[in-house]
């Protein structure tokens, strides 16, 4: 099983320019990145992550699981270990006011999450006002949307919103920005909890139903879709488990497997058979 790519600074080939819609991470920009086995550099969205590695790992773990579950993800993704000099120069080009904050640097290196640029735009960019909410909910009611919502709940993604759901028609969705997966908990220090409330993605369906944006029929169908999509989670996790463990070990050392064990325990519980059915109160 090929390891999730962790690449040296040389893989960051060219700074291209700012991302039009940057989201919460001010360091997000476009660059050409050379991924393994690719000869030509690939236009990629790049963002610098805190040096504790957790947010970067969250992105990689989510990418691995989503891909394993058959959900559309950027074809190429990697963590790149930039030199702090390169990172500073990049930020200067992006915005002269941006500083390379201390929490982004360790041992003169910066961890960057890189993923191939997608052609589509987010729901936030494409639609405005009430139409934005309507399209977001409508997307979640599709088969693809249900698969995404199921994985958001399994990974307890805290930050799904109009800005990080790319939309190229109702049946082509790409979920990005998984920094706040795994309950945004410092799992490298302690085991992540299993919060009682549903994740924001699934909660938005409940809200849409309560506010009559969707009918009861549509709501029930969406929940059943999520529960059905979750049936594939356990095998998907099994398929990428080795890569996930290897990535955590590579970044954290983790000789006794305690850290990767925490991550896996969290996800395994939430991807167990019938877990989603019970969670949503859907008859299986």
């Amino acid at each position, binding site marked *: *099983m*090929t*390891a*999730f*790519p*962790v*690449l*040296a*600074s*040389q*893989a*960051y*080939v*060219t*700074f*291209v*320019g700012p991302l039009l819609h940057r989201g919460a991470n001010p360091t997000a920009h476009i660059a*050409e990145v*050379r*991924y*393994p*086995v*690719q*000869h*030509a*550099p690939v236009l990629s969205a790049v963002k610098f992550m805190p*040096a*504790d*590695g957790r947010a970067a790992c969250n992105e990689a773990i989510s990418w691995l699981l989503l*891909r*394993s*579950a*058959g959900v559309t993800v950027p*074809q190429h993704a990697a963590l790149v*270990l930039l030199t702090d000099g*390169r990172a500073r*120069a*990049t930020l200067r*080009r992006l915005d002269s006011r941006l500083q390379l904050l201390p929490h982004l640097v*360790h*041992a*003169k*290196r910066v*961890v960057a999450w890189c993923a191939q640029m997608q052609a589509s735009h987010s729901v936030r960019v494409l639609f405005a006002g009430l139409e934005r909410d309507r399209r977001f909910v409508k997307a979640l009611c599709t088969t693809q949307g249900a698969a995404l919502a199921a994985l958001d709940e399994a990974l307890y993604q805290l930050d799904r919103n109009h800005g990080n759901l790319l939309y190229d028609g109702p049946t082509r969705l790409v979920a990005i920005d998984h920094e706040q997966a795994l309950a945004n908990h410092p799992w*490298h220090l302690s085991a992540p909890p299993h919060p009682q409330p549903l994740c924001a993605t699934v909660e938005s369906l409940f809200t849409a139903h309560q506010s009559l944006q969707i009918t009861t029929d549509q709501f029930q169908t969406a929940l059943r879709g999520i529960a059905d999509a979750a049936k*594939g989670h356990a*095998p*998907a996790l099994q*398929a*990428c488990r080795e*890569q996930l463990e290897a990535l955590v070990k*590579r*970044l*954290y*050392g983790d000789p006794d497997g305690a850290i990767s064990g925490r991550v896996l325990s969290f996800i395994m519980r939430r991807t167990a058979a019938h877990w989603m059915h019970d969670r949503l109160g859907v008859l299986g």
Partner: protein
Amino acid sequence: MIDLARVEPTHPSVEPSFEGDWLSVEFQPEPHVPQRFVIGAALARRGRLLAWRLASEAPRLACFYGDRFAKSTWKWLHDELEADLRAAEHTPVKAFQCRSPQISLTLGGFASGGTLDATLSRTFERIVTVVAHNKAKPRSEGVPQAELRRAVADWLMQRRPLEFARFAHPLGLLIRQGGEDHSFDIGYDDGAVAASVVSASYASLDNARLNVMTATADLLRYTRIRPRRQIGLAVLLPGSGLPGEVRTAWSDWWRHESYKYRESGAFVLMESDEQEALASQVSDLYPEPAA
């Protein structure tokens, strides 16, 4: 706690022979109208101009300005700018001053690449707006191998999402030994069967042969290092979109080569001139595990 100083990359990265900055050469056709077009790309190292490439034609300017755009004026502008840049070679970019106030150099950002020319070409393709880069594909166009492999991987991922990661290695296979990673041109392996997908759909027979031979060599050597029950080669044959003489040259060569593959018994040979059919054959190599 993470120690980024100790984290080793999973894959080797090639040390670029060029590192510097890219710049855009911009032209403002009307001094009183703030509309600029990128007419060239330049590279600098340590702040000094090193290389540049200007668009020799500007069909998009002709679109914009119609009768006001004259090819002779463009040629004059091009030649004058070329002379100014030549005079400014190896001098600080910040000090560059073109004789025309309508021309400016704007710093883009960090750039690197295997060679100066490759970096310049890539930058030019990406930023120059006055030429049409996406030309209509010629009728005689094959299927590049990278594109074929992506298409096959996408097809497999759609149809076998739960198992895809079990046997697919879109990034190729690596063997790590002595602190070094050695890559093999093999896209599929489940521990029992290793296979590679190659494109023979090229206008040049040399490209097709190179793809076949590279994958064959790596499969044979890999299976000596990591014994496999079976190895497979999936070949996309030149389709009807390619000229007759290309397909004839291929079939003359492949007739003998495919005989050797089949009769040797060393390979499972899969062939098709359609990507989906080829992907389906690859899928058959990796049956679903028994429940």
